[in-house]
Structures are given as C-alpha cells and as structure tokens.
C-alpha cells in the first residue's frame, strides 16, 4: 500500500466538525450565551439542566460535538498558521499543537462529561 497522507483523515474530521458546528453551535451560543444571561428567555432551573446533562444521550451528544468541533478548529487553525502567519517551517510544532490540543480537549471533555458530572 502506497504511503498515503494522513491529511485525508484530518480533513474528514474537519468536515464532520464543520457540519456539527454549523448546525448545532449557533443555538447553543444563542441560548446560553445571549438569551439566558440577557434575560430574553427564562433559563431552565439548575435541577432541570443537571438532569438533562446527566442523561447518557446528552453526554454522548456533547462529547461528539466537542470532539468534532475541536478537530474542526485544529485543522482550520493549522492552515491559518501556514497561510496567514507563514510559519510553515514550524510544521511539526503546529501539527502537534493543533491536533494535540484537540486530543487534549477531547480527553478533558470525555472526563468532564462522563466522570465528573
């Protein structure tokens, strides 16, 4: 099998993350970042939200959303650094920093969502 660039795999994650972020993140930010803090909509109570969060479906949903979105950021940010900042000679550092950061974020997410709540 010929040596195949792994970029295809990261591009797939980037695309999946882009789709997830496009469909789901706006309503998340709208509710928790704007509507509730600014009093446009009455926020749900603590009990209700905690119950929602503790459901296995919610945990999985949030985990998938976090992982995909983080890898979306990582891939896009990597190329932003290549093209925008022209630091492609720091390639190895960038790859580790971006995808590594996404991995760390994913692990944190998994821990928070499945073990700490």
């Amino acid at each position: 099998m010929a040596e195949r660039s792994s970029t295809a795999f990261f591009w797939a994650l980037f695309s999946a993350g882009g789709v997830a972020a496009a469909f789901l993140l706006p309503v998340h930010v709208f509710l928790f970042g704007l509507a509730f803090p600014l009093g446009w909509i009455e926020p749900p109570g603590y009990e209700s939200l905690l119950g929602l969060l503790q459901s296995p479906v919610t945990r999985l949903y949030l985990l998938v959303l976090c992982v995909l979105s983080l890898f979306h950021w990582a891939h896009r940010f990597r190329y932003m650094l290549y093209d925008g900042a022209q630091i492609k000679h720091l390639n190895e550092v960038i790859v580790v920093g971006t995808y590594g950061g996404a991995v760390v974020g994913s692990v944190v997410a998994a821990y928070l969502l499945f073990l700490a709540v």
Partner: protein
Amino acid sequence: MAETIVLQVTRYRPEQEAEPTIQEYEVPFTDDWVLLDALNYVKDNIDGSLSFRWSCRMGICGSCGMMVNGEPKLTCAAFVSEYAPGPVRIEPLRYFPIIRDLTTDMTDFMEKLKSVKPWIIRQEEKPISEGEYLQSPEELDRYKQFSMCINCMLCYAACPVYGLDPTFTGPAVIALAQRYNLDSRDQGSRERLELLSDHEGIWGCTFVGECTKVCPKNVDPAGAIQQYKVTATTDWFKSFIMPRGVE
C-alpha cells in the same frame, strides 16, 4: 479625437536592472479595444522593447494572462473602456517568476500538469477493430465543465496558497486531473490519486475560492478540488477496509 488612457506597465530588463520598475504609456483607444490592443499599440508605435505573450486574441489560447489593477485577467478579454479614465496598472501574472517585462515562467505549471497524467489512461487499449468509445450526454456532462480549461493560469495568480507554497499542485492541474477521473473512458483514477493525495497535492487548498472567481471559462477549479478531496478521503477510509487492488 481619440480618447487616451495611461497604462502603467511593469518593466523588468534583467540585463540592466535588479528589480521591476513601472513605465507609463499614453495610448489612444476606441470602444472596441481591449487591453491587449493597447499593449500592441505600445509595442508597434511607442516602445518595441515591451515583451508580453499573446496569440488568439479571443480568450481560447490562454496566453495573455496578466494582472490588471491587481486582478488576474486575460488582456484580450478586458475592455479598455471599462478602465477609463485610468490609469491602468498592468503587471505580470502573480506568483510566477518574472523572466522579462510581462512574461512569466510557466515551467512549474507545465511540470505539474504533466505529473497528473492529463490524458485517457486505459488498463488495456481498445483495438480499433472494436470501434469507438461510446459516451452518453450524461457521461459527458459529468466532466465537461472541467474540460473547458485553457491553461491560462489566472487561477494560479489568484491562489494565495500557490503563492505561499509553490509545491502546491494548484487549481487548474487538479481540475484537469478531475476532468479525466470523471471521464467514463478513463481508468486512471487510482494512478492520479496516488500522485495527488500526498501532502502538498490537494490538501494545501483551503477553499479560498478565488480561483473560481477569476476563471474566464467557468471551470470552477475550487469545486473540482473539493470534490477531489471527498474522493481522496473516501478512498483513504476504504483502503483500511478493503485490500489494495480492488478497483
């Protein structure tokens, strides 16, 4: 009395200067003139030393691409009247080495084009006795848009990724590779995939989309590249599930 317009043209004479300079020419024009006419007027009447490429004058040969007011254009397709009262800046095509005045070196593009094997690849040639290849209008429609490329390289002048990293294969070449991949007569997708899917081949593209905007033939190279990324990715995943050699 003819209207005139000032052209601010890049001059670069390597035998006498280390860097490009700008020279101004005042040129008469009428409604039907294109910038190529203006440049030819300069060469015929004002300054015979000005060097630039052109051929068909009708937007099919792809020779006369230059930067016009910072935008990649075919000078045979840019009417002078649209730039009046001017002045108009005419520079050589961006992101290519400048040989002289408005002529750039195309070798990089030519090498990359050859590398993706832009011809029908068959596992076995069909002998003439078996007749011609038949292709339905639907099959033609799949690749026709990408076959309209005239190799003018305006898309390369628009692509910042190519500008930053000359190892990037570039819009037109990938679009042409896709033109053959999608051609029902071709059996060379796998060969091209292995050439293109290495790191610089297609993955450098961040879908800026400028290439499609400047293309005079509506080839949509950006679309071709994204479609190719999908193909390459699907193939990558398949290569883990299915053994090599399954077509």
